[in-house]
């Protein structure tokens, strides 16, 4: 669709329902997937709560959009970096997050984990490598 491929990073720093940033960020990711860029997502600070499993918004009358994260693999969005320190600071572990996966077309469609735990320092290096950074 486009002639050049850039490294796109979407940084998610906010809890999923307190503001609309998380949901509208996801909308950009879904639209952006059609542009065939090299897309990564990062979850840090309260943004790690976006990936918590078992989200239930029925009591607050808001749309539970967490199932949408499970569809990201089908959109070829397969790199979700979660900052380890942000999880730890909130008393969370990888076990508390949705088990998001994708099918790797370069490896006989083997199912692989989309979530990659990285340290704050590693995430800084990853951000350094990006061409375009969206911050939500």
């Amino acid at each position, binding site marked *: 669709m486009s002639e050049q491929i850039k490294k796109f990073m979407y940084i998610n720093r906010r809890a999923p329902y307190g503001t609309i*940033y998380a949901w*509208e960020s996801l909308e950009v990711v879904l639209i952006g997937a059609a542009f065939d860029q090299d897309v990564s997502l990062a979850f840090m600070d309260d943004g790690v709560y976006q990936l918590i499993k078992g989200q239930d918004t029925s009591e607050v009358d808001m749309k539970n959009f967490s199932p949408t994260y499970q569809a990201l693999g089908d959109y070829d969005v397969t790199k979700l970096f979660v900052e380890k320190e942000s999880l730890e600071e909130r008393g969370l572990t990888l076990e508390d997050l949705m088990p998001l996966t994708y099918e790797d077309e370069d490896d006989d469609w083997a199912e692989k984990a989309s979530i990659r735990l990285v340290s704050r320092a590693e995430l800084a290096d990853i951000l350094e490598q990006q061409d375009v*950074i*969206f911050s939500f």
Partner: protein
Amino acid sequence: MKFAIQVNEGPYQHQAADSAYQFTKAVLEAGHEIMRVFFYHDGVNNGTSLTTPPQDDRNIVNRWSELGKKHDLDLVVCVAAAQRRGIVDEGEMKRNGKSAQNIADGFRISGLGQLVEAGIQSDRLVVFGD
């Protein structure tokens, strides 16, 4: 250098709307190019013609319209964010059966693809918000 600007916050509520304007103006004065200004989240409220600030205050909406006219800027309001927040042009008014339109002069409503495209085509995408 070719810049794209993303404005994520509404006028008067948040300084990001002012900073985005001041930065855009400075970029143009320095002889660079602004390929697009994209308004997202509450930033879409920078594009409503119904804004009436007190007379002794800056008019943020008109300021964008004037800068846009002077430099032929592409001021794009995200359609999905605009629909949620009641920013409407003639097409949207007809499509959604609304009673009015309020898009300010020089702004246009379009899709999120315009933001992604701006990221691809510009040398720098600068985001204004928290």
